[in-house]
């Protein structure tokens, strides 16, 4: 029942957004906008492939990390293995608590439903695939690194030591493997069931069911359900997320909406300004008469006459 209500909530938020964006302006661009909104949120959030990460079940074996390295043919240095890097798409981070308690958190791209990086990228090098994951096309990437600024989870990594062919690097949710009907490498090799792949709808239901079954054990929060407008990677945990290095101040509003608020008003501002300037210049012409001098300066009779 939780899942149903949450989908309904996210739907209504989406509609509200759409509505407010339209009323806020850009009625002239309504056609463009409607299609653009559809493009960025077109994939039904329910059926998008997703992963449920249950932090309480992770034993920190790092199998996921190793299989990711193998599947993506990565060559990390030992230093690069410490965190996400151009050669580390997923990393298992260790958190020690008093009393000898330890938790492990697997990190990777969250594959946001309405991804900041995809909306920020000027050439759509980072883009949302039909299926849902956020993928990357290096052939058009400018290397501007604006995606890195925009990502609310600080995921994209850049190859700082390549002269002309650096790429943006991050987890692609094993798109090719998934298309071939396989599981993402990390999930396939997780021995404890801490990683579970499915559609987002299913997994949200499962997450809430697990929390409901052990309400005293789990924190009552599915990280990624609403963060940044919803992500495909969902976390549940028995330790507060704030203690596990999760950003807890991420807005629940889709990040792209923050810039689209302004962008969608620009046509109006520019149109209005154009009208004012044209009017003013016509008026000026009228008032000053035909003072407009078409003779080049070097052919004019001495000035001041």
């Amino acid at each position, binding site marked *: 029942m939780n899942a149903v209500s949450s989908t309904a909530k996210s739907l209504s938020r989406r509609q509200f957004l759409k509505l407010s964006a339209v009323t806020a302006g850009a009625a002239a661009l309504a056609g463009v906008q409607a299609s653009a909104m559809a493009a960025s949120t077109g994939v039904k959030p329910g059926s998008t492939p997703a992963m449920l990460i249950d932090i309480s079940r992770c034993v920190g074996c790092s199998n996921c990390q190793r299989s990711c390295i193998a599947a993506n043919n990565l060559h990390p240095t030992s230093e690069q293995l410490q965190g996400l890097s151009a050669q580390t798409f997923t990393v298992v981070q260790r958190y020690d608590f008093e009393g000898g308690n330890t938790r492990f958190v697997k990190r990777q791209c969250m594959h946001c439903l309405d991804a900041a990086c995809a909306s920020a990228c000027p050439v759509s090098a980072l883009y949302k695939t039909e299926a849902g994951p956020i993928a990357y096309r290096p052939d058009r990437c400018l290397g501007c690194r604006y995606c890195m600024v925009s990502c609310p989870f600080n995921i994209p990594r850049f190859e700082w030591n390549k002269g002309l062919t650096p790429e943006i690097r991050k987890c692609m949710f094993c798109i090719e493997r998934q298309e071939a009907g396989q599981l993402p490498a990390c999930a396939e090799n997780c021995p404890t069931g801490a990683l579970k792949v499915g559609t987002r709808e299913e997994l949200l239901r499962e997450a809430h069911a697990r929390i409901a079954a052990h309400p005293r054990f789990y924190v009552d929060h599915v990280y990624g359900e609403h963060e940044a407008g919803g992500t495909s990677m969902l976390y549940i945990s028995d330790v507060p997320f704030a203690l596990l290095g999760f950003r807890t101040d991420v807005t629940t509003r889709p990040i792209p909406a*923050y810039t689209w608020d302004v962008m969608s008003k620009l046509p109006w501002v520019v149109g209005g300004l154009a009208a004012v300037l044209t009017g003013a210049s016509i008026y000026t012409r009228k008032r000053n008469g035909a003072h407009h001098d078409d003779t080049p300066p070097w052919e004019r009779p001495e000035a001041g006459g």
Partner: protein
Amino acid sequence: MLQDILMLTAFFILRIGVPLLLVIGIGYSLLQRFYGVKLDFSPKFVTGVGLVLALWALAAIAVILRFTDGLGAVTNLSDQFPLGLWIGFDVMAGAMLGGGAFVLAGLVYVFGIERYRPILRSTILTAFLGYVLLIVALLVDVGRPQNILLARPVYFINIHSVLWEVAMCVLCYTVVLALEFSPALFERLRWRRMWRLTHKITLPLVIVGILLSTMHQSSLGSLWLIAPGKLHGLWYSPLLPVFFWISAVAVGLAMVTVESNLSARAFKRGLEQDLLASLGKANAYLLAFYAAFRLADLAVRGQLGLVLRLDLPGVLFWVELGLGAILPAALLMRPQIRKNRDALFAIAAVIVACGILNRLNVSMFSLYSYTGPIYIPSWMEMVVTAGMFTFGAAVFALLARLLPVFPAEHGEQATVPAQV
């Protein structure tokens, strides 16, 4: 780190400095001996040129290193702090400093205030060079500049991306500025037809230029709206695009004063003091409005408490707004001060410096609250930026000698104010 710097400096002196000096020294003494050539430069001038040349050589080395070994070899940027000085100064501040051109062009052509015409051309030239350097800086800063040169953004359009819009506007506006300046070139070449053509389309060009400027000056602020929670509360505001536009106008106008004063000194020409004073007066009101608006925005967002803190952001904020807007506004309101040429120049210089600080605050320092102070520009980044800045100034000086940029040298337009 220190070792690297020492190594590089040593290499630079040995491989570049010493040979260059040897060639120049030997060449000059040979010329002097056999041909009786005698250069008569003041020692000050020679040192200046030498320093600038050294700077350019260093900058060239840094740029080459960047293209061979990557951005990591030259900059202090990292995955945690991906954009730095080249974006903050060369792009963000560079565009702002060119803001005077669209304002002055609008005043003269659209609103027919002809008395500003004498300082228009030099302003447009400054802006044009500024934008060209902005594009060059961008080509150095982005990871895959070849994709810009292949015009990828023209084919692959993402209307959701603020950066795409900025890129397009900057590109178009640079062309517009070139066209707006081109009558000066045709005047020198005495190409009648071309002069007429460019002269005729000036008004529509100016209007388009104002629209493009409005779009990208504001959007340079919108760029940062994509990072809610990453920028410090003193700067992150949904009104950032509006603030960027207003400050581009105000600082752009102050830049006109600075540039006029500098060129008046360099070229020993007269100064349009009354024009600059009237611009200063307008700027006083604009800056006062800007400061009030900024504070009101903070109050509405409930962040006013932040300005009372004496931490780094608080201090930066007060330098930027207090020293750069409130104080100049108060001073420029007084006619005696506006009449004083040196005072006007100094105030304008302060406005410009604090305007630059504002752009650095938004794009670099305000991120410290999120990332920690993990980024300080490397000396190579600074050298490249300084090199570009001086290069722009040198090209300006050259063009100002070759083309009719200043009215005083040509004389025919200086009396136009009388007609209004």
